[in-house]
């Protein structure tokens, strides 16, 4: 591989403060918990100190949201729409700032935050803005909002997950209390500033930062009408148990272990690109990542050779470099988990391979990794690793591919690669997953519903379907 000169995006566009408070009722206020530090995972440098919301702070945020609910839900839909359009426009205006901040706090390559995350965030607000005055046409009968939505989001797509939660909630007339992940709070706090620039009424959006305890306080708060969570299946179960019997409406978008199925007639180069995008996009920190490659036995050798060749060209390093393909692992904790599961893969007998790949001395890094000779019983075939680790299994017949693909408690996504149209549709019918990408992978759009079957959670985000979670149906 030839060398590229460094091409770093400038950090100057971001004005980082040394400390951040909570955003409650339109104001930044101090938190009463012990503040925490958020670090740049590519360098381990501390970016800022961030307030921790105690349960009292969460209560204040919920009260502010409750008070704002009266005003916000009473606004004509067309007026709510205009606020959301404004927010979408300001996101576009401040796109570079958001992208750089996201890459700093999360570790994802600027190419992705700039070209995928932030454009999708703006698009999501545009999309749901347009629904705000058309809800009675959405097919859910009632167009009544639920009230206060408590929303807890993960660290893998911090701003995009915020958009997925806040845009439909606000469009339907709800107000929100949102808790960003403790390792990636900064773009949510910048979003708070965007709400102020848009003159959004105070209390309509409240951002409370903190770790699991803060999230638990949001979920358990008695005056929250709706809980939306994106994160691990493990935490999803706890939330479902907490919410049981309260009558709160619940949507959960949880883990996955998606099969990416390649048939012998697939266009190999395109499939290789799709496999790489499927598992190495965002360092594999993607709930719908194609983490199990199911390849038809007859083309295994050819496909793996092409895949290994391609992995050798991936550039790992500085997330702010515009040529970087693979950035930093988001946290030391996540890196430890990826290492543990990969070591387990080896000790259980799968064969591990990585391209020659120099890891930076500081920060949290993991090379793109393949496991071959994987059995369905192996941990690397069953557990969600949430990192740049691909497990390769084989199959002979379409029926066997379906059987293996569905042999998981998860059901978020699946991929199919074949030139035969009827086979795509046959497979898509039988794959028990909420999203099926055929001859493509990891595509997202605000108009397209996203969410899982089985233990990948319930409810959909995006599209007309995404409104259901925020309306009294």
């Amino acid at each position, binding site marked *: 591989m030839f060398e590229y000169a460094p091409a770093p995006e400038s950090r100057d566009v971001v004005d980082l403060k040394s400390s951040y408070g909570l955003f409650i009722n339109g104001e930044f206020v101090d938190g009463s918990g012990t503040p925490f530090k958020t670090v740049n995972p590519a360098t381990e440098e501390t970016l800022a100190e961030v307030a921790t919301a105690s349960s009292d702070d969460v209560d204040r945020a919920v009260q502010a949201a409750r008070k704002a609910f009266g005003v916000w839900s009473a606004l004509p839909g067309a007026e709510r729409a205009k606020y959301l359009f404004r927010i979408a426009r300001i996101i576009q205006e401040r796109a570079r700032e958001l992208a750089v901040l996201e890459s700093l706090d999360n570790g994802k390559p600027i190419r992705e935050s700039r070209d995928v995350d932030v454009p999708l965030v703006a698009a999501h607000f545009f999309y749901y803005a347009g629904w705000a005055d058309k809800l009675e046409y959405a097919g859910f009968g009632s167009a009544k909002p639920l009230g206060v939505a408590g929303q807890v989001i993960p660290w893998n797509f911090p701003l995009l997950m915020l958009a997925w939660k806040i845009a439909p909630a606000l469009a339907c007339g709800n107000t929100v209390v949102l808790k960003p992940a403790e390792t990636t709070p900064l773009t949510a706090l910048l979003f708070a500033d965007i709400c102020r620039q848009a003159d959004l009424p105070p209390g309509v959006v409240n951002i409370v930062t903190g770790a699991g305890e803060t999230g638990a306080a949001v979920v358990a708060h008695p005056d929250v009408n709706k809980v939306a969570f994106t994160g691990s299946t493990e935490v999803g179960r706890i939330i479902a148990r907490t919410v049981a*019997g309260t009558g709160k409406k619940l949507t959960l978008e949880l883990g996955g272990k998606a099969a990416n199925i390649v048939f012998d007639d697939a266009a190999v180069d395109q499939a290789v690109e799709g496999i790489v995008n499927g598992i190495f996009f965002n360092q594999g920190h993607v709930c719908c990542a194609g983490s199990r490659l199911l390849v038809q036995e007859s083309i295994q050798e050819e496909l793996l050779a092409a895949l290994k060749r391609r992995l050798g060209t991936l550039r790992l390093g500085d997330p702010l470099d515009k040529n970087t393909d693979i950035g930093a692992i988001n946290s030391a904790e996540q890196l430890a988990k990826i290492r543990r599961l990969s070591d387990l893969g080896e000790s259980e007998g799968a064969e591990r391979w990585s391209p020659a790949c120099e890891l930076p001395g500081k920060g949290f890094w993991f090379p793109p990794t393949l496991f071959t000779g994987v059995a369905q019983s192996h941990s690397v075939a069953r557990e969600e690793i949430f990192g740049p680790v691909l497990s390769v299994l084989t199959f002979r017949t379409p029926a066997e591919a379906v059987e293996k693909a569905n042999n998981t408690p998860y059901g978020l996504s699946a991929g199919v690669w074949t030139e035969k149209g009827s086979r795509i549709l046959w497979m898509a019918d039988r794959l028990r997953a909420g999203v099926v990408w055929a001859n493509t992978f990891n595509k997202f759009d605000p108009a397209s519903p996203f969410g899982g079957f089985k233990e990948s959670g319930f409810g959909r985000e995006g599209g007309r379907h995404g409104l259901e979670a925020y309306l009294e149906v």
Partner: protein
Amino acid sequence: MSRLSVRKTYKLYIGGAFPRSESGRSYPVTSAKGDFLANASRASRKDARDAVVAARKAFPGWSGATAYNRGQILYRIAEMLEGRRAQFADELGGGKRAALEQVDATVDRLVWYAGWSDKIASVHGAANPVAGPYFNLSTPEPTGVVAVVAPADPLLGLVSVVAPAIVTGNTCVVVASEPSPLGAITLSEVLATSDLPGGVVNVLTGRQSELAPWLAAHMDVNAIDLTGVADADLALSCEQAAAENLKRVLRPAAAPDWAADPGIGRMTAFLETKTVWHPVGI
């Protein structure tokens, strides 16, 4: 001398067959006035597991059948029920006219749901105009195996919870009303003669407080309908147990009025949305 009648043995309905409870247990069922009617099977945990296995086995075939075919079969159930109108009215007891009205309403409900089989995808699916060269379609898909704790209303209530679950391709395990389980077993005879594949509907009779928690905690059940659970503590514990494998839970805030327009909520509660993407190109 008057003839002694031949009574029916009320058994369970699992996988298209009518077995007794493997536990050998039964419990007496009485009329509203307290007269003995029959000994119903008191299903065990093993029976509940067998029923889930039967429902899971039936799922690929039933969910893979065409919507038209499922609609035909639901309509066939209505036909069979209509043919046994008098028998069902007799079993319901009470005033004859009121009982016949209940049976008629039940037949009509089945016909209503039968018609939904090939329309729900049009109403609940979507063609999504994404910002790129992709074909993108969302379709409603059945959730899987649904545990249904049936309400006390032994016929209209029962059919009003079972029909919406199965018309979209789910299979189910039904816990019949504990005090009035006999209608559910007689309905099973109708189901068994309506071309409904065995295992699509499985009926357990017995103690709700025993059966519901087993099904709520069963890891191969995808969803649970708690409509028939009147005991709030039992409903809560079932809802908590259901969290373990993230079952979809239907627990109406108030007891439903079975005479009212049912809407599509009972169908959509047990539907997943599947979205398929494909690039557009030459």
